[in-house]
């Protein structure tokens, strides 16, 4: 039957490609990094640097900074390898299997970095950086420290909080942004009463919904409580059930835009555009929100404000505990020391100021804070500087399967098909299986 051959063949080939993809990339990439950490023909030390800056402005800023460093340090050659986010992740997964990583590589810290450290692939840089790492914002360093040892240097940092439309708040006669969960629910009710959609949410993508549960859990259990639950692989405690119950209180008010379960984050009908076009009063989002609101919608300019996630009565966490994440660079085991010298320069006051000014980033170096002029980013930066505790994004802090289960279960809670108890139970079940 020659007619059926193509369809049944491609069926099998699809499965085939899916399962060999991992193997294939392992073989291909293991041949790719042969000259790293060695010397080039001019006797310079080559530092191979894997980063994920593939969009402007950092796409050009990164090579420019590397050139500037090379000029001042003629004995070092920085070999940049820019990779798109997902390509980077899959290449790293394959490389971890082969046991050899690039000299300097992008990391978000947390569970994935810990795995690499445990596998003996990442250098402990505590002693080499102790003289200067104190300059960096403490919250930005948290994700890369395990048992008091440092394994990477932060370059970027951000946090999640509520972005709100001041004009719509005024219209609903809310004088000041809420500081407790009860006040927050009141504000939602007032907005609804005024005929305004209180919250924009991208239900299709799940992670924006997860932010609510995660922040509630941080406020109720505290960052320590989160860590303990992660270590014990048990999220079934009262604190986590309560986080779900509080989220359910919010969901029951039906605060989200029409059709939010099918909404994406970007795109003309997505969460960012809904906020950017002043069709909703709030969104819980990271520091990139103002830019995305502008690029996907019209942007609401000076009407945009920022307030931290409200406190929950009786919770162990403080309202100054921050949920967020950033990016940094880790050194492979036995990597060249020149790489660390480069990092010291890269996050130094002068270079970091340039990253803030031209790259639109939030400063990790406390001495670079003057370079920040945007009032919205300043608010996030202030929040980070005053942070009493820092919780890394759950999908990076936890193993991928647990992070995804949190997303999935919380999405089910928001859609109304799982109870707070079931959410806590599902997450625990997946955590235990890891």
């Amino acid at each position: 039957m020659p007619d059926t051959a193509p369809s049944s063949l491609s069926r099998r080939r699809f499965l085939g490609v899916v399962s060999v993809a991992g193997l294939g990339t392992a073989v291909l990439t293991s041949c790719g990094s042969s000259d790293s950490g060695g010397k080039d023909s001019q006797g310079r030390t080559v530092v191979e640097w894997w980063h994920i800056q593939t969009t402007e402005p950092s796409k050009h800023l990164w090579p420019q900074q590397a050139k500037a460093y090379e000029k001042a340090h003629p004995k070092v050659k920085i070999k940049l390898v820019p990779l798109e986010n997902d390509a980077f992740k899959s290449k790293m997964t394959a490389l971890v299997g082969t046991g050899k990583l690039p000299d300097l590589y992008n990391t978000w810290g947390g569970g994935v970095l810990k795995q690499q450290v445990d596998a003996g692939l990442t250098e402990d840089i505590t002693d080499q950086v102790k003289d200067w790492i104190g300059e960096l914002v403490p919250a930005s360093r948290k994700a890369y420290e395990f048992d008091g040892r440092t394994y990477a240097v932060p370059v970027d940092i951000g946090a999640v909080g509520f972005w709100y439309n001041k004009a719509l708040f005024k219209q609903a006669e809310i004088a000041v942004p809420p500081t407790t969960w009860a006040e927050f629910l009141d504000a939602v009710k007032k907005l609804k009463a005024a005929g305004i959609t209180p919250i924009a949410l991208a239900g299709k993508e799940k992670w924006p919904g997860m932010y609510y549960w995660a922040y509630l859990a941080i406020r109720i259990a505290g960052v320590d409580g989160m860590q303990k639950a992660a270590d014990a692989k048990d999220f079934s405690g009262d604190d986590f059930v309560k986080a779900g119950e509080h989220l359910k209180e919010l969901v029951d008010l039906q605060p989200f835009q029409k059709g939010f379960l099918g909404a994406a984050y970007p795109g003309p009908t997505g969460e960012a555009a809904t906020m950017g076009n002043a069709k909703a009063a709030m969104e819980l989002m990271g520091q990139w929100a103002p830019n995305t609101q502008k690029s996907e919608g019209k942007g609401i300019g000076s009407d945009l404000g920022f307030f931290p996630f409200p406190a929950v009565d009786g919770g162990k966490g403080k309202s100054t505990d921050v949920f967020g994440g950033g990016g940094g660079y880790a050194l492979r085991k036995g990597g060249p020391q020149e790489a660390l010298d480069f990092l010291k320069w890269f996050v130094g006051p002068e270079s970091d100021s340039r990253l803030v000014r031209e790259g639109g980033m939030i400063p990790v170096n406390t001495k670079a804070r003057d370079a920040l002029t945007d009032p919205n980013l300043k608010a996030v930066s202030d929040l980070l500087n005053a942070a009493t505790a820092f919780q890394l994004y759950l999908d990076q802090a936890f193993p991928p399967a647990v992070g995804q289960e949190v997303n999935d279960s919380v999405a089910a809670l928001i859609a109304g098909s799982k109870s707070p108890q079931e959410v806590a139970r599902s997450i625990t079940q997946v955590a235990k299986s890891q």
Partner: protein
Amino acid sequence: MTMTSTQIEDAGPTLREGSATGRVRNRRPVARRVRDWLTAFLFTVPGLALFLVFVAVPILYAGYVSLFNWGGFGSPSDFVGVDNFTRLFQDPVFLGDLWRGLLLVGLSLGLQLPFALAMAVLLNQELRGRAVYRMLFFAPYVLSEVITGVLFSMIFAPDSGLADKALGAVGLDGAGGLWFAGQNTVLATLFLVMTWKYFGFHMMLLLAGLQGIPAELTEAARLDGANAWQRFRHITLPLLGPTIRMSIFLSVIGAIQLFDLVWVVTQGGPDHHSETMAVTMFQFGFKRYQMGYASAISIVMFLISLVFALFYQRYVLRRDTEGALTNMRGSR
């Protein structure tokens, strides 16, 4: 017929149906037979090698991996036997996938194919501008699934999308509802888009089939006094059988492997209400890095497709390859 073409044509049947062509083979000298085999072997080596590397080995490897609890790091070491499969058949999401798959197959066969057939019959008539209609109806099939997905997620955006605006324009404000964003409406909306995209393809297949039916037969029936329905029922439909059976086959396989469209439009949501087996597999393999579990899903998908394909070819399509209509055997 030249010698070379006979040899090549014979290579196939000798492998499958030894007895039928055995008499011919025995008359040939041994050296010649060895040479024939060698030629056949040489011609199949590239294909066979590709088949082994890209089809056979991965299937076996996926089968092997499906017996492990493996996160994709290093090599699989945590052997769990058939645990992944028992877990799979207790997972409400996966059981839902099976149900939704069945539903989509049912809808495709019950609504989409009859619709395609009706359009094909219609456009087989003398009709003004029928070439334009044919092209228009076939056009969606050429569009990539990703473009289709993005397009329809805009069209079916609640309130602000084209669909709701159009309904509003004819006085049906609010009749649209949630489309992709509603748990009870998502699958129906998805099926609507699938029909829009694929009916043109099936219509084209059926049209080609219709044009292969000699006009004399219909004409003779007409002279014998058969009405339009009788002519369709007793001449067109039976003679279109092989094409319809092929169409059914492609529909079913397509519904089983549905992925791109769903991924772009809903990612399986809201709350798994549009998730398919392939989407679940992707979630577990590339979002959660549970390669063992994802492999188990892919193995089940493979077995379902394989069993269906084998049974269908054995019991349904065999009539078409060996029957009186195409008469492949008779020509030899």
